[in-house]
């Protein structure tokens, strides 16, 4: 069989991995059996690395050593405003790193990690899941990013893949990816659709034209700092503000209570997509001086949530209108509207989308999984050329250079189909000028300083001549995955200099290699030894038997057995689950013995209960 290739949706809050197996896309469940893996990384008190649901579960008690929403920091500069805004909301510590590079590091226990290294831990976990599922090594991957990611953010994501030991054959845009999942296996003649993608941290809107298996992106736009997290934050503020006024305690200042607030806010938000109101109950949330413990108990109703977040939804719709204007299309002309990202489950968003486009949004794709599935399809398309499909994506930002007077001259306009290249001839401005500085920028402002700086490079060794006599031809290339490279040529001498505009907050080649090596070792440690596998199989059998017994056990507890044995069993079970995840072979062996004894005793108790007067009701 051909070499496997996986598609990864590396999300702000959750990640998904998928592959194409004998022509059918499948979502790969993680080793705990779930299809969504939280994008959370933590270092436990014992120094172990935790990723996914386990890391998320312990976030409340270990907030400072747990990293969430790292995607918001990918490829960002320390001094940028968006970074500083994001930091105010993150429960862990972020420190500036290299002054020259203006990058940042995340404090994780005793060590510090760059955002790509944290993302690599999530990717490595997904890779292990895929290897366990497919039963063979996996190295080839397609990773998705929001369409609005700039060059630095794309490069940082690619670096994360390399650290996780993956050969990232392509970085593709999330909305485009979702449209591949939509178009896969359908006989579509010609159709124009749009993708409304509101994930955990970013919003993207894309208009696509589909024609006989060719997916042509017409226009794309978005907001890289607008997502489900912001909806949660609104609820957090709504919870914390009255508490602050009443008790003088700001719950957002304490990392642990902030984490509890965030969990409760997210849960309430999700519940309110299907119910009208939801009770939020957070006992012992704080301790007042001299007044003992304080509790937080409020009811949040759906209309209230909608009031809190209306402006966020407005921002999304504003982006939609702008992108449709760029694509020269009216909302009612579109053949279908795809909703992608968990946040699009919100009834308010669905209603507003329905109103704007004058149609019911498509239910053809799963909002959580479509992006990963599309990435897997693109991977299979590239690697195996099985499907007659082709993706024509565009560059989301204009690429250009700084010119005299502080202006920005666009060389490749936004929404140009990639791969693309363009060139621009510069002339020297001074007599005997031997070097020229070229500043490469990405953005839409006419003013150079307001655009994102991708890099600067010096063209040196120019031939001495009168000003205006030396022509320098600068060539800009954007590859099919949106990565920029620039080269310059002295037209008369043929002297060529080229640089790949590396993300200024990216890692150096050496740093990537070191991190990749460390990850390699960690992954080797994760490979299960046969003894552990034996214990794990036994443990899973015991866990299954407990699951079967559980309803009867609950009944027995209510019928006089009491809660105490049940709670003891619960504790022992969670210890065993943790040991499975952390591969503690010896510990697991003794846990199993204990659990088997408990199982025997509890089973006996339940069966005795059956003959007791209340239990034997039939």
């Amino acid at each position, binding site marked *: 069989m051909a070499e496997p290739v996986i598609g990864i949706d590396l999300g702000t809050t959750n990640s998904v991995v998928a592959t194409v197996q004998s022509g059918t896309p499948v979502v790969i469940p993680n080793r705990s059996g779930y299809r969504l893996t939280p994008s959370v990384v933590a270092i436990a008190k014992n120094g172990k690395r935790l990723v996914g649901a386990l890391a998320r579960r312990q976030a409340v008690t270990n907030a400072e050593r747990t990293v969430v929403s790292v995607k918001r920091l990918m490829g960002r500069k320390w001094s940028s405003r968006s970074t500083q805004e994001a930091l105010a909301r993150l429960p862990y510590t972020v420190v500036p790193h290299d002054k020259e590079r203006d990058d940042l590091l995340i404090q994780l226990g005793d060590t510090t990690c760059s955002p790509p290294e944290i993302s690599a831990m999530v990717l490595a976990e997904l890779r292990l899941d895929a290897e366990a599922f497919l039963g063979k090594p996996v190295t080839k991957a397609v990773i998705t990013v929001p369409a609005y990611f700039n060059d630095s953010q794309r490069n940082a994501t690619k670096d994360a893949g390399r650290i996780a030991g993956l050969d990232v054959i392509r970085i593709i845009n999330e909305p485009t990816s979702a449209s591949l999942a939509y178009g896969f296996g359908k006989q579509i003649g*010609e159709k124009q659709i749009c993708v409304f993608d509101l994930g955990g941290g970013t919003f993207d809107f894309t208009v696509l034209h589909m024609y006989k*298996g060719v997916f042509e992106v017409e226009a794309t736009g978005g907001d890289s700092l607008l997502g489900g997290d912001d909806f949660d934050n609104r609820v957090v503020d709504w919870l914390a503000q009255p508490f602050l006024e009443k008790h003088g305690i700001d719950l957002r200042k304490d990392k642990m209570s902030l984490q509890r607030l965030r969990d409760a806010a997210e849960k309430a938000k999700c519940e309110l997509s299907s119910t009208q109101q939801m009770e939020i109950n957070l006992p012992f949330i704080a301790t007042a001086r001299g007044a003992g413990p304080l509790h937080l108990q409020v009811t949040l109703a759906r209309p209230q949530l909608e009031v809190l977040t209306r402006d966020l939804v407005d921002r999304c719709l504003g982006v939609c209108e702008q992108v449709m204007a760029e694509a020269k299309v009216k909302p009612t002309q579109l053949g279908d509207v795809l909703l992608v990202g968990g946040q699009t489950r919100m009834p308010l968003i669905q209603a507003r989308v329905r109103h704007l486009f004058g149609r019911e949004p498509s239910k053809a794709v799963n909002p959580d999984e479509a992006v990963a599935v599309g990435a897997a399809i693109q991977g299979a398309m590239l690697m*195996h050329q099985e499907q007659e499909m082709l*993706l024509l994506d565009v560059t989301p930002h204009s690429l250009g250079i700084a010119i005299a007077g*502080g*202006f920005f001259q666009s060389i490749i306009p936004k929404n*140009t*189909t990639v791969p693309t290249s363009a060139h621009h001839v510069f002339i020297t401005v001074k007599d005997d000028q031997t070097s020229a500085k070229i500043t490469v920028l990405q953005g839409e402002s*006419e*003013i150079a300083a307001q655009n994102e700086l991708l890099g600067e490079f010096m063209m040196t060794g120019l031939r001495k001549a009168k000003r205006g006599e030396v022509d320098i031809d600068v060539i800009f290339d954007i590859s099919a995955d949106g990565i920029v490279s620039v080269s310059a040529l002295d037209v008369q001498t043929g002297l060529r200099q080229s640089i790949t505009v590396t993300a200024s907050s990216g890692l150096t080649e050496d740093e990537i290699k070191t991190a990749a090596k460390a990850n390699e070792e960690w992954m080797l440690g994760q490979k299960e030894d046969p003894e552990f596998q034996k214990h794990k199989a036994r443990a899973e059998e015991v866990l299954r038997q407990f699951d079967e017994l559980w309803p009867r056990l609950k009944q027995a507890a209510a019928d006089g057995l009491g809660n105490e044995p049940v709670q003891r069993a619960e504790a022992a079970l969670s210890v065993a689950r943790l040991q499975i995840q952390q591969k503690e072979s010896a510990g697991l062996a003794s846990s199993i013995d204990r659990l088997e004894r408990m199982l025997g005793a509890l089973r006996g108790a339940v069966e005795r209960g059956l003959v007791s007067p209340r239990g034997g009701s039939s």
Partner: protein
Amino acid sequence: MATLPTPASGGTDLPPELQNELRTFEAVGRDVSLYDLLGVAPDADGGTIRRAYLDRSRRYHPDAWFRKNVGEFGPLLSRAFQKLSAAYQVLSDEDARTAYDQVLKKRLSQRERDAMDRRALSREEQERRQREGRERLLRTKGFARIGAAHKLYEEALELALNGERAQAIAALKAARELDPRRGEIAQKLTELEREAARSRSQLALKGGREQEEKGDLPAALKTYSQSLQMDPTNAAAAAAAARCATALGDHQQASTFAARAVEIAPDDVETRFLLASAFLTLGLKVKARAELTRVLQAKADHKEARALLKRV
């Protein structure tokens, strides 16, 4: 510039006919029209052009041969696709296509020129027929008119989608005449007209930049000012015009253009500085001081502004 690979190369998995096509593509110069590149007739409509482009993309996009050993044909594949996509870029935009047609016409064969004339003629003919039809409709009353207006409106949207902006505008104008009270018609019309003006303005701005780079400042100034007239919100055109006027020593004009530029884009520190300098040369010290203060408010470390303010 590019050297052609020698034929009969063994190091590639690409089918021989594609290899030949790629060599042909590589050799394609400016003498081959964009229409020929995409394989469409010069009077093809927007939809046909688009479908032709997408069909060819399937063959020439580098991803279509991702895993194949393309050998020395890799760069050729990429350049072939880029030529197609550049051609589509021009032909899918009404104004760019009209401009290109004019250039192309000069070196066309009689047959192709006829085809192009046919496109213009058929447009005129279509418009004439539409006009007559409308006049007939205008004499009728009630629902028929509203229905016809709606049909025209939908047609216009379709045309706009296919990049036929001028025709879309004509259709919308007709629709408005039939049903003057329908807001969406007037709205789309304004939108398209503004878009057309903006696109013409951008084209002029580009032309101006080329002239400026060549050193023909008077011509550049004229083009920039035209660009600004076409789209009065084009800050870049105003700023560029101000820059040219300054270089030409016409400070009166420079101050007018610069004032317009900073009115549209108040954050443009450099143009504001230019405005201040122009005011100063014209002897308007109070105005110059006010602008310099604003420059320093926006960018405190602007050395030239600081020096100039001291002199004032």
